[in-house]
């Protein structure tokens, strides 16, 4: 396909997707839906009930269909008493690709396998789709947060920056629907390089009535450094919105993520996984809620999904007061001055 034909094709798809993704149908459907109110945060900030939504992926062909799916899982979490609901990575992108005509199962994988031209096509698609899909995602989740009166870490969406770079960004909404903060993914992997994503360069902590939250994204939790940055800013709950496209699921492989981070930098971890097959990719994982083994016992999992490929809401109660005491009484505290000297020097030597 020539460059001109490719651009015209993308422009055509963009216009159709924009039409199919107009907000009216989602707005109308949400205005008629039933909402129950979430339990208010513990005034003393001692405990919080969290929900990790294991979201069964499907491609949505309208904003209404997308709103319905997100509503359904939020409602299940709220009805189970959740005060914080965590959704998986790219929930604001992959399901909404169903708005793009002809994107059906396998198409994206075929594009990637097509080689360099396919890579270009995926990057162009990501850049063209991001500004169309983001408003739908943002509208749906801020509406759900406000109408259920619940905190939502709404997984992530692709964001087109003013400099034309595209980032994978988690959005956090408060119970009044206001956006509390954003966190761009700081470590990229696999398809994200193909998509030409830019990485973030800061880890934020959001102080909320339900605890201090940090939201590094999926691959970010493979690196102890992100958990440490959050911990040193007093984060109490690490939210891990993930989407792993893997042929064969392994619980042990999954433990390489936020489970490991909360052992090193004591905090709770809430991992929400995307599951199901779409675009020729198998997404697998078991959503779970973790804590430091020394605090919560067992293998550190307070709750986990039963399956790696079906939708589920995973619920757990987090005792923040116990966590604070545990952190205060740690037998061994890291020597941060030593860390600064040694790792600082090594990072300088490794820098390009």
């Amino acid at each position: 396909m020539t460059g001109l034909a490719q651009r015209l094709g993308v422009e055509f798809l963009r216009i159709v997707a924009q039409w199919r993704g107009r907000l009216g149908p989602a707005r109308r459907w949400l205005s008629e839906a039933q909402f129950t109110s979430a339990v208010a945060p513990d005034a003393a900030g001692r405990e919080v009930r969290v929900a990790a939504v294991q979201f069964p992926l499907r491609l949505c062909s309208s904003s209404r269909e997308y709103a319905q799916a997100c509503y359904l899982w939020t409602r299940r979490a709220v009805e189970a008493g959740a005060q914080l609901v965590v959704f998986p990575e790219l929930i604001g992108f992959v399901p909404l690709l169903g708005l793009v005509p002809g994107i059906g199962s396998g198409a994206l994988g075929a594009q990637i396998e097509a080689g360099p031209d396919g890579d270009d096509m995926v990057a162009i698609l990501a850049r063209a789709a991001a500004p169309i899909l983001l408003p739908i995602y943002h509208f749906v989740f801020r509406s759900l947060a406000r109408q259920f009166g619940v905190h939502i870490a709404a997984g992530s969406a692709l964001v087109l920056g003013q400099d034309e770079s595209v980032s994978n960004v988690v959005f956090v909404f408060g119970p009044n629907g206001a956006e509390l903060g954003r966190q761009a993914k700081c470590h990229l992997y696999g398809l994200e390089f193909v998509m030409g994503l830019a990485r973030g360069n800061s880890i934020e902590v959001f102080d909320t009535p339900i605890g201090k939250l940090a939201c590094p994204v999926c691959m970010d939790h493979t690196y102890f450094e992100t958990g440490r940055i959050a911990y040193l800013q007093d984060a109490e709950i690490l939210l891990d919105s993930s989407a792993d496209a893997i042929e064969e699921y392994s619980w042990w492989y999954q433990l390489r993520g936020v489970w490991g981070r909360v052992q090193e930098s004591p905090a709770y971890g809430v991992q929400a996984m995307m599951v199901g097959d779409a675009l020729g990719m198998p997404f697998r994982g078991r959503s779970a809620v973790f804590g430091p083994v020394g605090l919560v016992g067992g293998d550190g999992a307070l709750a986990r999904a039963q399956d790696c490929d079906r939708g589920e809401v995973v619920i757990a109660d987090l005792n923040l007061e116990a966590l604070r005491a545990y952190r205060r009484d740690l037998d061994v505290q890291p020597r941060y001055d030593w860390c600064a000297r040694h790792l600082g020097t090594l990072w300088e030597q490794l820098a390009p």
Partner: protein
Amino acid sequence: MRRANSTGAVLQGRQYTFATEEAWAQRWAQALSRAASWGAQLAVLSGSPGWDEAGDAALRQAAELAERFGMWLVADLGPERDDEGRAFQSLHVVASDGSLAGTQRQIHLTQREREMLFSPGEELATFDSPVGVLGLLRGADVGIPEVARGLTLLGAEVLIHVGTLGTVSEGAWLARLWREVQANQVFGLEAYPVGPGLVARSCVLAPVELTLEGKGVVAQASDPRAEAVIVGELDWEARKRLLAQYPILDEMNLELYRRQLLALYRGEGPS
């Protein structure tokens, strides 16, 4: 120095306070003989000998064992002292020709170790051996991810941990060297002693992708309360393939670490 595949051993022994260095050597000789017969090129000894200082006699006995069995040894031979009389919890590395390859002092101390007036180590070292480049973690250092990361960035390919475990909890064991092996995509040899109040889950570890059942365990002691010799092969070709496909350390965000983490380490952050 390393071959395509190499073999490491972990000796899970009973925790004693040895009266003499000869008794210590005698105690380990049988286990080393078994490890050597299974092709081990390096053995990690569990526990500590209970002496006040790693003196010449201890080093001599360790050298004789290494030479006798043609094997590199990693062991706690007792605390190391410097010219100012400060004591350091340490691990010693003895080459198969009996020479002392070096030591690694423990960087982070427990409350009890601080009360016993041990001083913390400062420097990180790696050791080139027939089973790969070694990085050593003694005791509490395994819980501080900066230590293992520092060693890996210095070139360590095999992390060795010598410590004690007081619980049968699998989670507590996973949270130690297993976590570091997965985070740094290296091999691991972990030695725990058995004894009153101790639980031993000594093992040879690898990244999960390299092991048959995907758990990241090459070999492990089957009985946490019995002495054992655990031998495992380190598959370097498989690791090379893994790193070509999924190189975690190549994708570090150094800009983020230098700008934000370094400031937080220095107490310059917002909290």
